[in-house]
């Protein structure tokens, strides 16, 4: 009968292109990493699933009228979803450790060298035939070194939407790989003695300081780097709602239901950029390689900065905490703590690493603003 023929001609079996099969395998791999290996599952489950849906021959998910098309257009190309996520992250962030020891901000600054060195590296890769990264592309790739998902997605959606899928996948994958990438670098750059350094306990921070801090951050961003205000502003809004204590129902919703809803759709929307023709390219290999370099350089520069600060500062600073400056909250801080405990079982660095860790979030939002202002 005709009907069976029509159905057959519409099946995946009859229409599969190799690229789609490969991309479904990539989606499946992301699901596997998320579920079995616990690789940033909150993002990689929806991204991986979105990648599968995107590559269904005849599924139409990313065509006008398709679910993923609407999600991407409404939430990602407008930049709204990453900003809402950033507000929710702000509502979950405690700046206490950073306010108690503001010098830690310099570690968050140093780790951004990973971003700018990678930008240089991405352009240098153009000498290899097959790569033709523009400055916009290179900037969006380099932000992987910021180790912050929403920042990477926000910047990529503005500077290089066609690379967004690969960039987001690289960013979240390397964030999950922080416990593997960072320790060798941390150990190579520090002596046993340095890793043993114990740090003075952090002072208590008052509620007023916690309320004023996000406003101070916002004010400085307004004064010096307006291009960062979308990211920094939404982050500070979330943090202010959390700390001010009078809008608890808003901050709890922002940090729970709202961020959860948006995370599902953000993941699916990112997945919609994982089509074969966009992902199965030479560039993606370059992006994956550059992302690993970015993380490594960021880690190294954070550690080196911490060593310098330890030398010139009156307080003891364990250089390991510099590695937390890449952000990847809270994974990087936990890695610091673990490596510290290996050297000295009584040395709990977690709280000390939270300072550079959240400083890294601010640092990469600042770096993203610089790139937007100069390259966007």
């Amino acid at each position: 009968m005709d009907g069976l023929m029509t159905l057959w001609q519409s099946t995946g079996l009859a229409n599969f292109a190799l690229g789609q099969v490969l991309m479904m395998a990539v989606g499946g791999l992301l699901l596997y990493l998320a579920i079995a290996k616990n690789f940033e599952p909150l993002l990689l489950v929806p991204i991986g699933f979105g990648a599968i849906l995107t590559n269904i021959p005849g599924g139409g998910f990313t065509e006008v009228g398709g679910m993923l098309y609407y999600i991407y257009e409404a939430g990602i190309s407008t930049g709204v979803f990453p900003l809402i996520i950033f507000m929710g992250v702000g509502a979950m962030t405690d700046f206490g450790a950073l306010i108690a020891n503001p010098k830690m901000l310099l570690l968050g600054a140093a780790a951004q060298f990973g971003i700018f060195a990678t930008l240089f590296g991405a352009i240098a890769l153009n000498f290899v035939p097959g790569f033709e990264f523009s400055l916009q592309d290179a900037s969006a790739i380099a932000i992987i070194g910021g180790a912050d998902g929403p920042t990477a997605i926000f910047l990529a959606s503005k500077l290089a939407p066609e690379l967004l899928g690969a960039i987001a996948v690289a960013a979240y994958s390397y964030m999950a790989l922080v416990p593997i990438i960072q320790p060798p670098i941390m150990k190579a750059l520090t002596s046993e003695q340095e890793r043993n350094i114990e740090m003075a306990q952090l002072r208590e921070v008052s509620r007023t300081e916690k309320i004023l801090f996000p406003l101070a951050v916002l004010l400085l961003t307004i004064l010096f780097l307006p291009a960062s205000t979308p990211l920094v502003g939404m982050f500070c809004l979330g943090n202010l709602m959390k700390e001010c204590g009078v809008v608890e129902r808003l901050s709890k919703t922002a940090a729970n239901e709202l961020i959860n809803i948006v995370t599902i759709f953000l993941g699916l929307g990112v997945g919609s950029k994982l089509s074969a023709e966009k992902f199965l390219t030479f560039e993606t290999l370059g992006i994956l390689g550059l992302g690993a370099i970015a993380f490594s350089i960021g880690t190294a520069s954070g550690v080196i900065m911490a060593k310098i600060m330890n030398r010139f500062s009156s307080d003891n600073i364990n250089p390991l905490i510099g590695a937390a400056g890449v952000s990847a909250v809270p994974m990087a801080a936990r890695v610091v703590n673990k490596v510290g405990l290996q050297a000295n079982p009584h040395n709990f660095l977690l709280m000390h690493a939270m300072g550079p860790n959240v400083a890294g979030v601010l640092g990469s939002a600042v770096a993203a603003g610089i790139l937007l202002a100069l390259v966007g």
Partner: protein
Amino acid sequence: MEITDLLVRSGQLMAVGMLVVFGFLSILVFCTKLLSSLVLKYQPLAPEPAAELPASEGQISPQTVAAISAAIVQYRKDKTNTGE
């Protein structure tokens, strides 16, 4: 644009970027310290004993006590009934 031109531009970006990141966050270090000193000057950290104590001591609300009391009575009755 030639790759070398791009390289020059990205080198400049690196310099400007790191300068601005460090500059910005250094100012933030300064402002945070200033902010903290101002806050602590005008509003020294109170020991806040009133807010802490109830959490450590008074975890059991009157209702809980009432409910538990009733439960104990109930429990004793049951014990008596079942001849435990």
